[in-house]
């Protein structure tokens, strides 16, 4: 069988299994095993599998992932979100559509200590949705805002997808976090602008009069203090050179745990809930790691990814065109796949392709900038119909809002996403500036 045909067969098996509801990780695992055995036979595969689980699970670099997830669940169960939203509504309340903006602000701030998009969307929704409803916000605007707010986090450290990209592309995690910071802020402001424009263009979705009576007081400030302290401690420590990202995650988890204890929200039952949720979140990711490993090893044996990279180079396309085509591909793929599976499966193929192109920047800068672009684009898939995992999560919590209304609600945010993606595509300096500054 020719390498190209074999590659197509491996992909066909994977996609076929995925289409019939086989877990994505297992679809990759099965296709990878078949591809591996076809090319190299059983005993090399058997040897590979002997140590694969150990090599993947017991890795210092990857241990940052369960630690950040644990930190997020301590924060979720610890009652930090309530106080945070109250403060955000005190700050934003004076503007038209202010509560929606507050939800965006609270989502971004909460994401600074929680590693998961879906968990953020669910946490902030549970505190913000009833408030927005009480103040007369439409189901469309409130569910759309909360679903979009959850995706902000993919750019805000400590984002798990960002960590995974850094590991795959062999880039410094701290540098990627720095590169994502400004795009993350732009995303947050862009979402707020989207709300401001939307409530003016399409009346009837937000109250005309400001009805929020929260004031910025010492009491409400107390609510954001834990998050601010933890963020400064963790990222100050990482950038100050006091500790590695993994150590930072451990410090973050410990201090979030302490903060939750101080807020008197954490019971033994809730700690168990944290462990269960961490178990589910981490296991899901590492299961995909196992599958993607097999898949990528089988693909590497065919040598098609390497050839593909040189073929693309030989076409002499403009580098920006290649990157744009890849990003478009992610938007399409994002309609059916989740962000982690996409990154794990495609980065080993696309990364060599992109890094070989001449953007007039150093290699490391290209790697970092490409990572930010990819992460922003896979975030699309969390919002856009027909799947939009975040839209489902938020909509499931708002029982009286039809799903079609929620999809309409995310449209202004998708427009904002598109504009931001174009901005960063043409001006890589926006994401690279802070990295250089911190060096």
């Amino acid at each position: 069988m020719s390498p190209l045909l074999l590659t197509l067969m491996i992909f066909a098996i994977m996609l076929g299994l995925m289409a019939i509801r086989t877990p994505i990780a297992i679809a990759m695992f099965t296709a990878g095993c078949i591809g591996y055995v076809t090319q190299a036979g059983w005993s090399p595969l058997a040897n590979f599998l002997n140590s694969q689980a150990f090599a993947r699970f017991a890795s210092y670099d990857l241990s940052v992932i369960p630690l950040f997830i644990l930190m997020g669940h301590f924060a979720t169960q610890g009652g930090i979100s309530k106080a945070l939203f109250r403060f955000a509504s005190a700050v934003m309340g004076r503007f038209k559509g202010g509560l929606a903006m507050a939800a965006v602000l609270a989502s971004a701030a909460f994401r600074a200590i929680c590693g998961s998009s879906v968990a953020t969307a669910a946490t902030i929704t549970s505190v913000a949705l009833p408030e927005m409803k009480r103040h007369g916000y439409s189901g469309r605007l409130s569910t759309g805002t909360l679903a979009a707010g959850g995706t902000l986090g993919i750019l805000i450290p400590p984002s798990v997808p960002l960590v995974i990209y850094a590991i795959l592309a062999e880039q410094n995690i701290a540098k990627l976090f720095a590169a994502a910071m400004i795009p993350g802020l732009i995303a947050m402001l862009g979402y707020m602008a989207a709300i401001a424009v939307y409530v003016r263009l399409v009346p009837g979705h937000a109250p005309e009069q400001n009805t929020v009576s929260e004031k910025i007081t010492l009491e409400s400030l107390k609510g954001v203090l834990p998050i601010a302290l933890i963020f400064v401690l963790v990222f100050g420590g990482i950038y100050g050179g006091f500790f590695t990202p993994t150590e930072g995650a451990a410090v973050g988890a410990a201090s979030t745990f302490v903060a939750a204890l101080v807020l008197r929200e954490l019971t033994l039952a809730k700690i168990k809930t944290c462990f269960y949720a961490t178990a589910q979140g981490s296991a899901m990711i590492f299961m995909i790691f196992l599958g993607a490993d097999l898949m990528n090893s089988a693909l590497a044996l065919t040598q098609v990814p390497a050839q593909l990279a040189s073929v693309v180079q030989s076409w002499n396309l403009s580098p920006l065109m290649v990157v744009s085509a890849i990003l478009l591909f992610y938007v399409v793929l994002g309609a059916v796949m989740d962000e982690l599976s996409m990154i794990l499966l495609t980065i080993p193929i696309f990364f060599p392709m992109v890094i070989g192109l001449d953007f007039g920047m150093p290699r490391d800068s290209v790697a970092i900038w490409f990572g930010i672009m990819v992460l922003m684009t896979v975030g699309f898939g969390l919002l856009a119909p027909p799947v939009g995992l975040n839209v489902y999560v938020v909509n499931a919590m708002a029982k009286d809002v039809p799903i079609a209304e929620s999809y309409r609600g995310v449209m202004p945010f998708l427009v904002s996403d598109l504009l931001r993606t174009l901005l960063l595509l043409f001006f890589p300096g926006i994401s690279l500036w802070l990295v250089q500054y911190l060096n």
Partner: protein
Amino acid sequence: MKTLELLAKACAVIGGGLLTLITLMTCASLIGRNTVGITLAGDFELTGVAAGAAIALFLPLCQVRRGNIIVDFFTSNAAASTTAALDRFGALLLAIAMALMAWRSTLGGLNAYTTHSGTMMLGFPEWVVYACIAPALALTAMIALAQAVQGSGEDVQP
């Protein structure tokens, strides 16, 4: 299934406990390093192996809760009986994959035991981690097999 579920929950709590230990150890090590200048040499190796065991111990519960992501885009209009049958097939495939991994990890662990392979600095024996990974993978396989045989009854809901 009840027993398997209890075992999975116990594994998850142990895994969570291991992660908590890592955070404590790291904090102690950092305080030592940045204040009195005492370094816990090789603490990162312990973090790696403990996290490895924890992650393996997390797998069974994830399968109990059917937490492994599937694509339901193509089957969203299919009848409930069709999706149930497909889910049983998916669970079966997962059971086979996990059984394969459990078997090979057992061999890998035995090999690590006989060759006395350990971590670079502390020489922490690798077979200890294998001893967590292989049973956890086997438990995951059994849970998935039970789900494939029974279908999604009430007892597999989170």
